[in-house]
């Protein structure tokens, strides 16, 4: 029973990783950019939730909406200000990577400047009570996290598979030049992808704060890195891959804790990254993409 409870906790934690991993993967699919500032978007979302819920005292739905919109805007602004020129000029990937790390540091320091570096408490974001399921007792927060993520991932699949902009995203990710010939504006598609990815990270932030109600300007680093590992494990660029990778990393973490090895949880996660890179660098669902000339 304990084992099953740990699996469910892992799925809950993992669905947060998955929501964040989607942002890494979608942006990478379209721009081949690893947006290391993406983890800090979680932090931005957490502070947006804090400002709305605690400082302004708005209801939860308004706080979530505000966090999602604010993160989407921040994501697009980062893309336009920091990345767009580099992408237009086909800058080397290392320049993009360095820029992304710079943006990450900027966000962390900016929020430290505004909110100071001490941890802020954002308790009771989500209603918390035990829910009996058969012989198990699962926290409502865990169930809400899993359910919300499932709904959002279904919506994302519908967006990508059924809508015009979703098809434009897939086409651009596969062959940006051919997509342009069809009339797809790369610029708009990239901006839209950043908005969606950042919005998903904001949802991840709200769920994360629901489970761990203490926020700091640096909270996004480790969470972001683990989500990145999830994206690589699933196959970066693949949307279902990011979902599966996130869940697997969550369960791996949870089981590591369950066997009493809490101290090495992070080592296990990054050990998975090393294994993936050694054994199957394209990840579980990744395609072997040939470098375009």
């Amino acid at each position, binding site marked *: 029973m304990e084992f099953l409870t740990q699996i469910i906790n892992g799925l809950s934690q993992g669905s947060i990783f998955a929501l964040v991993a989607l942002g890494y993967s979608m942006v990478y699919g379209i721009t081949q950019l690893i947006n290391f500032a993406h983890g800090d978007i979680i932090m931005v979302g957490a502070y947006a939730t804090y400002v709305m819920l605690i400082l302004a005292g708005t209801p939860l739905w308004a706080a979530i909406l505000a966090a999602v919109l604010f993160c989407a805007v921040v994501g697009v602004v980062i893309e336009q200000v920091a990345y767009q020129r580099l992408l237009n000029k086909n800058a080397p990937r290392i320049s993009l990577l360095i820029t992304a790390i710079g943006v990450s540091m900027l966000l962390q320091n900016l929020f430290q400047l505004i909110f100071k570096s001490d941890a802020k408490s954002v308790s009771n974001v989500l209603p918390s009570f035990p829910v009996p399921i058969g012989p198990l007792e699962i926290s409502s927060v865990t169930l809400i996290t899993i359910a919300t993520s499932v709904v959002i991932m279904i919506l994302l699949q519908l967006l990508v598979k059924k809508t*015009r902009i979703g098809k*434009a995203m*897939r*086409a651009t990710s*596969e062959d940006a030049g*051919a997509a*342009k010939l*069809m009339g*797809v504006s790369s610029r708009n598609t990239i901006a839209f992808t950043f908005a969606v990815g950042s919005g998903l990270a904001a949802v991840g932030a709200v769920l994360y704060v629901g489970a761990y109600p203490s926020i700091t300007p640096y909270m996004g680093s480790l969470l972001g890195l683990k989500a990145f590992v999830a994206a690589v494990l699933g196959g970066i660029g693949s949307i279902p891959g990011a979902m599966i990778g996130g869940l697997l990393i969550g369960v791996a973490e949870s089981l590591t804790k369950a066997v009493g090895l809490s101290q090495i949880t992070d080592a296990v996660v990054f050990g998975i990254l090393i294994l993936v890179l050694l054994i199957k660098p394209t990840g579980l669902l990744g*395609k072997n993409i040939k470098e375009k000339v």
Partner: protein
Amino acid sequence: MADNKVMLSVKDLEVYYGSIHAIKKVSFEVREGEIVTLIGANGAGKTTTLHAISGLVKAKSGELDFCGSNLRSMEAHRIIRLGLAQVPEGRRIFASMTVQENLEMGAYIRRDSANIQKDFDRIFERLPRLKERRRQIAGTLSGGEQQMLAIGRALMSNPKMLLLDEPSMGLSPLLVNEIFSIIRDVNQSGMTVLLVEQNAKQALEIANRAYVLETGTISMSGTASDLAADPKVRAAYLGAAD
């Protein structure tokens, strides 16, 4: 046809890749209703010329005019809205999307869903094999089917003119015949065509006029039948041993 109005006019086009002078003072025109072919060997600059027209590479100087619009000042994704559709070299279909989705991407710029549906029907009528495979992932099609899909996708934008870049590349002779007969059909239904080809023999057979591109410059031009009879063209491009 020589009196029809000029649709596409290229004047003194110059394109560089870094310090490499790829296209040197290339000028040609395509009139309404024509099939014009641009033939030449590998590396002569055929694809570069097309990419300059469709905006995928930027010209250094010269004029590119399509139906009164200056293409040089326009971004690639706007050019199709003028009615200039391209079937790119190597087909470049969206391999992980279905046949149907590829065709939908062809109609990306259009909002008139009733007419889009009619065009779907027309294209499926002309290319019945695509209809059979509409739910199939495009990457699993054979080379010939992929080429048909690339042509169908370009037609879905309801263009005024079609640019085709080496549609015969990598296809068996039988399929090459089929693709060329499709191009001829499309032209007979009123579509203006600019065809870039290495397969000079087939291209000259269906074209009205032709230009020969050699190391970035136009070395010869004329009606397709004149060029097909020209001893130099015959020796260099048609494999005639005379």
